Protein backbone atom coordinates (compact mmCIF):
# COMPACT_ATOMS: atom_id res chain seq x y z
CA UNK A 1 0.00 0.00 0.00
CA UNK A 2 1.45 3.34 -0.97
CA UNK A 3 2.18 6.05 1.56
CA UNK A 4 -0.20 8.33 -0.31
CA UNK A 5 -3.00 5.79 0.03
CA UNK A 6 -2.25 5.31 3.72
CA UNK A 7 -2.43 9.05 4.25
CA UNK A 8 -5.67 9.17 2.34
CA UNK A 9 -7.19 6.36 4.40
CA UNK A 10 -5.96 7.92 7.64
CA UNK A 11 -7.45 11.24 6.63
CA UNK A 12 -10.68 9.55 5.62
CA UNK A 13 -10.83 7.77 8.96
CA UNK A 14 -10.13 10.96 10.85
CA UNK A 15 -12.70 12.83 8.81
CA UNK A 16 -15.20 10.09 9.40
CA UNK A 17 -14.56 10.18 13.13
CA UNK A 18 -14.80 13.96 13.26
CA UNK A 19 -17.95 14.09 11.18
CA UNK A 20 -19.62 11.41 13.22
CA UNK A 21 -21.84 13.24 15.64
CA UNK A 22 -22.23 12.05 19.17
CA UNK A 23 -25.82 12.61 18.24
CA UNK A 24 -27.81 11.97 21.35
CA UNK A 25 -30.39 14.36 19.94
CA UNK A 26 -33.75 13.60 21.03
CA UNK A 27 -33.51 12.77 24.62
CA UNK A 28 -31.13 9.89 25.29
CA UNK A 29 -29.29 9.84 28.60
CA UNK A 30 -27.17 6.72 28.82
CA UNK A 31 -29.47 3.78 28.16
CA UNK A 32 -32.54 5.88 28.94
CA UNK A 33 -34.73 7.45 26.30
CA UNK A 34 -37.02 10.19 27.60
CA UNK A 35 -39.82 10.84 25.11
CA UNK A 36 -41.17 14.27 24.29
CA UNK A 37 -44.05 14.68 26.70
CA UNK A 38 -47.18 16.53 25.59
CA UNK A 39 -47.71 19.36 28.08
CA UNK A 40 -44.24 19.61 29.59
CA UNK A 41 -40.90 19.65 27.83
CA UNK A 42 -38.26 16.93 27.91
CA UNK A 43 -34.89 17.90 29.42
CA UNK A 44 -32.80 17.84 26.24
CA UNK A 45 -32.01 20.08 23.32
CA UNK A 46 -33.01 18.30 20.16
CA UNK A 47 -33.88 18.46 16.50
CA UNK A 48 -37.54 17.61 16.52
CA UNK A 49 -40.97 18.82 15.53
CA UNK A 50 -44.47 18.46 16.90
CA UNK A 51 -46.93 18.68 14.06
CA UNK A 52 -49.55 18.91 15.23
CA UNK A 53 -50.54 18.96 18.87
CA UNK A 54 -54.33 18.89 19.10
CA UNK A 55 -56.22 19.50 22.32
CA UNK A 56 -59.92 19.67 23.06
CA UNK A 57 -61.40 20.71 26.37
CA UNK A 58 -64.21 22.66 28.00
CA UNK A 59 -63.45 25.97 29.65
CA UNK A 60 -64.15 26.95 33.23
CA UNK A 61 -66.87 29.38 32.08
CA UNK A 62 -70.46 28.93 33.22
CA UNK A 63 -71.85 27.51 31.05
CA UNK A 64 -68.59 26.03 29.69
CA UNK A 65 -67.40 26.69 26.17
CA UNK A 66 -65.73 24.12 23.92
CA UNK A 67 -62.11 24.92 23.16
CA UNK A 68 -59.97 23.46 20.40
CA UNK A 69 -56.24 24.18 20.31
CA UNK A 70 -53.84 23.36 17.50
CA UNK A 71 -50.13 23.70 18.20
CA UNK A 72 -46.91 23.53 16.25
CA UNK A 73 -43.37 23.31 17.64
CA UNK A 74 -40.08 23.16 15.79
CA UNK A 75 -36.86 22.62 17.73
CA UNK A 76 -33.41 23.09 16.26
CA UNK A 77 -30.01 22.63 17.79
CA UNK A 78 -27.76 25.58 17.07
CA UNK A 79 -24.79 23.87 18.70
CA UNK A 80 -24.53 20.45 20.35
CA UNK A 81 -25.80 21.92 23.65
CA UNK A 82 -27.78 24.99 22.64
CA UNK A 83 -31.10 24.90 20.86
CA UNK A 84 -34.04 27.09 19.92
CA UNK A 85 -37.70 26.14 19.70
CA UNK A 86 -40.33 28.17 17.87
CA UNK A 87 -43.97 27.57 18.71
CA UNK A 88 -47.28 28.80 17.45
CA UNK A 89 -50.78 27.95 18.54
CA UNK A 90 -54.25 28.49 17.15
CA UNK A 91 -57.43 28.30 19.19
CA UNK A 92 -61.12 28.12 18.55
CA UNK A 93 -63.70 28.65 21.27
CA UNK A 94 -67.38 27.97 20.77
CA UNK A 95 -69.60 29.38 23.49
CA UNK A 96 -72.72 27.59 24.66
CA UNK A 97 -74.85 30.06 22.67
CA UNK A 98 -72.97 29.15 19.48
CA UNK A 99 -70.75 32.22 19.38
CA UNK A 100 -67.45 31.32 17.78
CA UNK A 101 -64.14 33.08 18.26
CA UNK A 102 -60.85 32.00 16.72
CA UNK A 103 -57.31 33.27 16.57
CA UNK A 104 -53.60 32.76 17.01
CA UNK A 105 -51.77 32.97 20.29
CA UNK A 106 -48.58 34.92 20.56
CA UNK A 107 -45.51 33.58 18.79
CA UNK A 108 -43.19 31.87 21.23
CA UNK A 109 -39.48 31.13 21.20
CA UNK A 110 -37.60 29.01 23.70
CA UNK A 111 -33.84 29.17 24.10
CA UNK A 112 -32.35 26.14 25.84
CA UNK A 113 -28.90 25.13 27.01
CA UNK A 114 -27.97 21.61 28.08
CA UNK A 115 -26.31 21.87 31.47
CA UNK A 116 -25.81 18.21 32.28
CA UNK A 117 -26.19 14.73 30.91
CA UNK A 118 -25.05 12.06 33.35
CA UNK A 119 -25.21 8.79 31.44
CA UNK A 120 -24.55 6.53 34.40
CA UNK A 121 -27.32 8.02 36.52
CA UNK A 122 -29.66 8.77 33.61
CA UNK A 123 -29.86 12.38 34.72
CA UNK A 124 -30.36 15.38 32.42
CA UNK A 125 -30.65 19.06 33.35
CA UNK A 126 -31.52 21.82 30.95
CA UNK A 127 -31.88 25.57 31.38
CA UNK A 128 -34.22 27.62 29.25
CA UNK A 129 -35.73 30.99 28.57
CA UNK A 130 -39.25 31.01 27.14
CA UNK A 131 -40.30 34.25 25.46
CA UNK A 132 -43.92 34.76 24.49
CA UNK A 133 -43.73 37.76 22.18
CA UNK A 134 -46.47 40.32 22.78
CA UNK A 135 -48.66 41.57 19.97
CA UNK A 136 -47.72 38.73 17.60
CA UNK A 137 -51.06 36.93 17.79
CA UNK A 138 -54.75 37.72 17.67
CA UNK A 139 -54.87 40.35 20.39
CA UNK A 140 -58.18 41.71 19.14
CA UNK A 141 -60.01 38.45 19.75
CA UNK A 142 -58.36 37.87 23.10
CA UNK A 143 -56.18 34.90 22.17
CA UNK A 144 -52.97 36.88 22.52
CA UNK A 145 -51.72 39.69 24.71
CA UNK A 146 -50.13 42.95 23.72
CA UNK A 147 -47.42 42.40 26.30
CA UNK A 148 -44.70 39.75 26.35
CA UNK A 149 -44.06 37.01 28.86
CA UNK A 150 -40.54 35.98 29.81
CA UNK A 151 -40.11 32.71 31.68
CA UNK A 152 -36.69 31.52 32.88
CA UNK A 153 -37.12 27.77 33.27
CA UNK A 154 -35.17 24.77 34.53
CA UNK A 155 -35.91 21.30 33.20
CA UNK A 156 -34.80 17.96 34.58
CA UNK A 157 -35.13 14.27 33.83
CA UNK A 158 -34.09 11.24 35.84
CA UNK A 159 -34.35 7.58 35.02
CA UNK A 160 -34.18 5.00 37.77
CA UNK A 161 -32.11 2.46 35.90
CA UNK A 162 -29.25 3.05 38.34
CA UNK A 163 -31.20 1.48 41.18
CA UNK A 164 -29.92 -1.92 42.34
CA UNK A 165 -31.02 -4.89 40.23
CA UNK A 166 -33.17 -6.06 43.14
CA UNK A 167 -35.62 -3.26 42.29
CA UNK A 168 -36.48 -5.20 39.14
CA UNK A 169 -39.14 -3.63 36.96
CA UNK A 170 -39.23 -0.44 39.05
CA UNK A 171 -36.01 0.58 37.28
CA UNK A 172 -38.06 1.29 34.15
CA UNK A 173 -39.62 4.35 35.83
CA UNK A 174 -38.42 7.86 35.07
CA UNK A 175 -39.48 11.35 36.04
CA UNK A 176 -39.14 14.63 34.20
CA UNK A 177 -40.14 18.10 35.20
CA UNK A 178 -39.79 21.81 34.72
CA UNK A 179 -40.07 24.89 36.91
CA UNK A 180 -40.31 28.39 35.51
CA UNK A 181 -40.99 31.89 36.77
CA UNK A 182 -43.16 33.83 34.33
CA UNK A 183 -42.64 37.59 34.23
CA UNK A 184 -44.94 39.79 32.12
CA UNK A 185 -43.41 42.87 30.53
CA UNK A 186 -46.42 44.92 31.67
CA UNK A 187 -47.69 44.91 35.23
CA UNK A 188 -51.17 46.24 34.53
CA UNK A 189 -53.69 45.52 31.78
CA UNK A 190 -55.48 48.79 31.11
CA UNK A 191 -57.96 47.22 28.70
CA UNK A 192 -59.33 44.83 31.33
CA UNK A 193 -58.30 46.96 34.28
CA UNK A 194 -56.52 44.14 36.11
CA UNK A 195 -53.03 43.49 37.39
CA UNK A 196 -50.97 41.01 35.38
CA UNK A 197 -49.50 38.56 37.87
CA UNK A 198 -46.07 37.00 37.89
CA UNK A 199 -46.59 33.26 37.97
CA UNK A 200 -44.85 30.06 38.87
CA UNK A 201 -45.24 27.71 35.89
CA UNK A 202 -44.32 24.14 36.67
CA UNK A 203 -45.01 20.58 35.70
CA UNK A 204 -43.77 17.04 35.87
CA UNK A 205 -44.20 13.63 34.35
CA UNK A 206 -43.95 10.12 35.73
CA UNK A 207 -43.33 7.58 33.00
CA UNK A 208 -42.81 3.85 32.69
CA UNK A 209 -40.72 2.77 29.73
CA UNK A 210 -41.66 -0.56 28.19
CA UNK A 211 -38.70 -0.26 25.74
CA UNK A 212 -36.38 0.14 28.73
CA UNK A 213 -37.98 -2.83 30.49
CA UNK A 214 -37.43 -5.01 27.46
CA UNK A 215 -33.86 -4.03 26.63
CA UNK A 216 -32.41 -3.39 30.09
CA UNK A 217 -34.33 -5.37 32.69
CA UNK A 218 -36.31 -8.32 31.37
CA UNK A 219 -37.61 -9.32 27.96
CA UNK A 220 -41.05 -10.71 28.72
CA UNK A 221 -41.77 -11.63 25.12
CA UNK A 222 -44.64 -9.16 24.94
CA UNK A 223 -46.19 -8.10 21.62
CA UNK A 224 -44.06 -5.61 19.73
CA UNK A 225 -46.70 -2.88 19.99
CA UNK A 226 -46.62 -3.11 23.79
CA UNK A 227 -42.82 -2.95 23.79
CA UNK A 228 -43.01 0.51 22.16
CA UNK A 229 -45.31 2.05 24.76
CA UNK A 230 -44.45 4.50 27.50
CA UNK A 231 -47.41 5.02 29.85
CA UNK A 232 -47.17 8.46 31.39
CA UNK A 233 -48.90 10.78 33.83
CA UNK A 234 -48.19 14.46 33.35
CA UNK A 235 -49.18 17.51 35.32
CA UNK A 236 -48.88 21.14 34.28
CA UNK A 237 -49.69 23.83 36.84
CA UNK A 238 -49.65 27.60 37.16
CA UNK A 239 -49.71 29.57 40.40
CA UNK A 240 -49.80 33.38 40.65
CA UNK A 241 -47.14 34.49 43.09
CA UNK A 242 -46.75 38.25 42.75
CA UNK A 243 -48.47 41.38 41.44
CA UNK A 244 -51.84 39.74 41.84
CA UNK A 245 -53.56 42.37 43.94
CA UNK A 246 -57.21 41.71 44.52
CA UNK A 247 -57.20 38.31 42.83
CA UNK A 248 -57.07 34.85 44.39
CA UNK A 249 -53.75 32.99 44.34
CA UNK A 250 -55.40 29.93 42.87
CA UNK A 251 -53.35 27.20 41.24
CA UNK A 252 -54.75 26.01 37.93
CA UNK A 253 -53.75 23.22 35.61
CA UNK A 254 -54.43 19.70 34.50
CA UNK A 255 -53.27 16.19 35.30
CA UNK A 256 -52.92 14.10 32.17
CA UNK A 257 -52.76 10.32 32.22
CA UNK A 258 -51.96 8.80 28.86
CA UNK A 259 -49.55 6.83 26.76
CA UNK A 260 -46.85 7.53 24.19
CA UNK A 261 -46.00 5.09 21.41
CA UNK A 262 -42.36 5.43 20.45
CA UNK A 263 -41.08 4.48 17.00
CA UNK A 264 -37.75 4.93 15.29
CA UNK A 265 -38.66 8.17 13.52
CA UNK A 266 -41.69 9.51 15.33
CA UNK A 267 -43.86 9.10 18.36
CA UNK A 268 -47.58 9.43 18.91
CA UNK A 269 -49.01 10.52 22.24
CA UNK A 270 -52.56 10.57 23.58
CA UNK A 271 -53.62 11.82 27.00
CA UNK A 272 -56.76 12.71 28.92
CA UNK A 273 -56.76 16.22 30.41
CA UNK A 274 -58.24 16.32 33.89
CA UNK A 275 -58.66 19.79 35.43
CA UNK A 276 -57.35 19.95 38.98
CA UNK A 277 -60.17 22.28 40.09
CA UNK A 278 -63.21 24.20 38.83
CA UNK A 279 -61.04 27.16 37.81
CA UNK A 280 -59.00 24.93 35.48
CA UNK A 281 -61.78 23.69 33.24
CA UNK A 282 -64.89 21.60 33.04
CA UNK A 283 -64.88 17.85 32.57
CA UNK A 284 -62.19 15.76 30.93
CA UNK A 285 -60.49 16.94 27.78
CA UNK A 286 -58.13 15.17 25.45
CA UNK A 287 -54.78 15.98 23.85
CA UNK A 288 -52.92 14.17 21.08
CA UNK A 289 -49.60 14.77 19.38
CA UNK A 290 -47.55 13.54 16.47
CA UNK A 291 -43.90 14.19 17.18
CA UNK A 292 -41.15 13.77 14.60
CA UNK A 293 -37.50 12.96 15.36
CA UNK A 294 -35.75 15.13 12.78
CA UNK A 295 -32.30 13.88 13.81
CA UNK A 296 -33.32 10.37 12.80
CA UNK A 297 -35.26 11.40 9.71
CA UNK A 298 -32.53 13.67 8.36
CA UNK A 299 -29.37 12.62 10.20
CA UNK A 300 -26.89 14.37 7.94
CA UNK A 301 -28.78 17.60 7.28
CA UNK A 302 -31.66 18.94 9.34
CA UNK A 303 -30.83 16.59 12.19
CA UNK A 304 -27.41 18.12 12.77
CA UNK A 305 -26.64 21.20 14.86
CA UNK A 306 -26.05 24.30 12.74
CA UNK A 307 -22.61 24.78 14.26
CA UNK A 308 -20.28 22.25 15.81
CA UNK A 309 -22.52 19.39 14.83
CA UNK A 310 -19.46 17.51 13.89
CA UNK A 311 -18.33 16.72 17.38
CA UNK A 312 -15.97 13.81 17.43
CA UNK A 313 -17.30 10.39 18.16
CA UNK A 314 -17.24 9.57 21.80
CA UNK A 315 -14.71 6.88 22.51
CA UNK A 316 -16.61 3.69 23.13
CA UNK A 317 -15.79 2.91 26.71
CA UNK A 318 -17.87 1.59 29.54
Amino acid sequence: MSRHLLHTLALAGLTSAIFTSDAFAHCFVGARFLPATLITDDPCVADEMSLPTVAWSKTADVPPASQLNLGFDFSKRITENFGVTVSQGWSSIRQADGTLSQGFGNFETTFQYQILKDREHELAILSGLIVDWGHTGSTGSGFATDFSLVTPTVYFGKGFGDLPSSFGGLRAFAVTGQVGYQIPTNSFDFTQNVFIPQQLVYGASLQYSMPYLKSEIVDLGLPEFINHLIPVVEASLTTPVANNFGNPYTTTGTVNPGVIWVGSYFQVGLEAMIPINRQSGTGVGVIGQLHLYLDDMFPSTLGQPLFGGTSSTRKLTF
Partner: protein
Amino acid sequence: MRIHTLAATTLLTLTISTTAWAHAFLDHAEPRVGSSTQTAPKEVVLFYSQNLEPAFSTIEVSDANGARVDQGKPKISASTMRIGVKPLPPGTYRVRWQVLSVDTHTTEGSFTFHVGP
Protein backbone atom coordinates in the same frame (compact mmCIF):
# COMPACT_ATOMS: atom_id res chain seq x y z
CA MET B 1 -54.61 20.42 -6.61
CA ARG B 2 -51.14 21.89 -6.31
CA ILE B 3 -51.40 21.74 -2.54
CA HIS B 4 -52.37 18.07 -2.71
CA THR B 5 -49.47 17.36 -5.03
CA LEU B 6 -47.07 19.22 -2.75
CA ALA B 7 -48.38 17.39 0.32
CA ALA B 8 -48.08 14.03 -1.42
CA THR B 9 -44.58 14.82 -2.61
CA THR B 10 -43.52 15.93 0.86
CA LEU B 11 -44.98 12.79 2.43
CA LEU B 12 -43.29 10.61 -0.18
CA THR B 13 -39.99 12.38 0.38
CA LEU B 14 -40.28 11.92 4.13
CA THR B 15 -41.14 8.27 3.69
CA ILE B 16 -38.29 7.57 1.31
CA SER B 17 -35.79 9.49 3.35
CA THR B 18 -36.73 7.73 6.56
CA THR B 19 -36.77 4.14 5.55
CA ALA B 20 -33.27 3.19 6.56
CA TRP B 21 -31.75 5.36 9.27
CA ALA B 22 -32.32 5.85 12.97
CA HIS B 23 -30.91 5.10 16.39
CA ALA B 24 -30.07 1.41 16.82
CA PHE B 25 -32.21 -0.04 19.60
CA LEU B 26 -31.61 -3.47 21.08
CA ASP B 27 -34.42 -5.54 19.62
CA HIS B 28 -33.63 -8.76 21.45
CA ALA B 29 -30.72 -10.83 22.69
CA GLU B 30 -29.56 -14.41 23.13
CA PRO B 31 -29.55 -15.20 26.01
CA ARG B 32 -32.70 -13.16 26.43
CA VAL B 33 -32.52 -9.99 28.55
CA GLY B 34 -33.07 -10.83 32.22
CA SER B 35 -33.44 -14.54 31.52
CA SER B 36 -32.25 -17.55 33.44
CA THR B 37 -30.81 -20.53 31.59
CA GLN B 38 -29.68 -23.95 32.74
CA THR B 39 -27.20 -24.35 29.91
CA ALA B 40 -24.30 -21.92 29.73
CA PRO B 41 -24.25 -20.10 26.39
CA LYS B 42 -21.12 -20.18 24.25
CA GLU B 43 -21.75 -16.73 22.89
CA VAL B 44 -23.87 -13.65 23.44
CA VAL B 45 -25.76 -12.35 20.42
CA LEU B 46 -27.44 -8.95 20.23
CA PHE B 47 -29.98 -8.07 17.54
CA TYR B 48 -30.57 -4.37 16.79
CA SER B 49 -33.21 -2.37 14.99
CA GLN B 50 -30.64 -0.82 12.62
CA ASN B 51 -27.42 -1.77 10.89
CA LEU B 52 -24.25 -1.10 12.86
CA GLU B 53 -20.88 0.49 12.18
CA PRO B 54 -18.42 -2.26 13.23
CA ALA B 55 -15.54 0.12 13.98
CA PHE B 56 -17.55 1.99 16.60
CA SER B 57 -19.59 -0.80 18.17
CA THR B 58 -18.48 -2.90 21.09
CA ILE B 59 -19.69 -5.36 23.70
CA GLU B 60 -18.34 -6.91 26.88
CA VAL B 61 -19.58 -9.60 29.23
CA SER B 62 -18.56 -9.74 32.89
CA ASP B 63 -19.35 -11.89 35.89
CA ALA B 64 -20.74 -10.80 39.25
CA ASN B 65 -17.26 -9.71 40.35
CA GLY B 66 -16.78 -7.57 37.28
CA ALA B 67 -14.25 -9.91 35.67
CA ARG B 68 -14.46 -10.11 31.90
CA VAL B 69 -15.67 -13.46 30.61
CA ASP B 70 -15.95 -12.62 26.92
CA GLN B 71 -13.29 -13.81 24.55
CA GLY B 72 -12.29 -12.82 21.08
CA LYS B 73 -13.41 -9.77 19.17
CA PRO B 74 -17.03 -8.84 18.56
CA LYS B 75 -18.35 -10.04 15.23
CA ILE B 76 -20.70 -7.60 13.60
CA SER B 77 -22.84 -8.30 10.59
CA ALA B 78 -25.52 -5.85 9.51
CA SER B 79 -27.70 -5.38 12.61
CA THR B 80 -26.29 -8.28 14.64
CA MET B 81 -23.37 -8.23 17.07
CA ARG B 82 -22.01 -11.36 18.76
CA ILE B 83 -19.14 -12.25 21.02
CA GLY B 84 -17.87 -15.56 22.38
CA VAL B 85 -17.72 -16.24 26.11
CA LYS B 86 -15.56 -18.51 28.23
CA PRO B 87 -17.17 -21.57 29.85
CA LEU B 88 -19.57 -19.96 32.30
CA PRO B 89 -20.11 -21.46 35.76
CA PRO B 90 -23.46 -20.83 37.42
CA GLY B 91 -23.90 -17.18 38.26
CA THR B 92 -25.21 -13.85 37.03
CA TYR B 93 -23.53 -12.11 34.11
CA ARG B 94 -23.78 -8.57 32.83
CA VAL B 95 -23.67 -7.64 29.15
CA ARG B 96 -22.67 -4.06 28.35
CA TRP B 97 -22.85 -2.72 24.83
CA GLN B 98 -22.45 0.45 22.89
CA VAL B 99 -23.11 0.76 19.19
CA LEU B 100 -23.05 3.28 16.41
CA SER B 101 -25.80 2.93 13.84
CA VAL B 102 -25.00 3.57 10.19
CA ASP B 103 -26.48 7.07 10.45
CA THR B 104 -23.97 7.97 13.21
CA HIS B 105 -26.26 7.77 16.22
CA THR B 106 -24.77 6.20 19.33
CA THR B 107 -26.83 4.10 21.72
CA GLU B 108 -25.81 2.06 24.73
CA GLY B 109 -27.19 -0.28 27.32
CA SER B 110 -26.62 -3.20 29.62
CA PHE B 111 -28.54 -6.17 30.97
CA THR B 112 -28.00 -9.33 32.95
CA PHE B 113 -28.71 -13.01 32.44
CA HIS B 114 -28.36 -15.88 34.85
CA VAL B 115 -26.80 -19.30 34.36
CA GLY B 116 -27.82 -22.15 36.63
CA PRO B 117 -30.79 -23.12 38.76
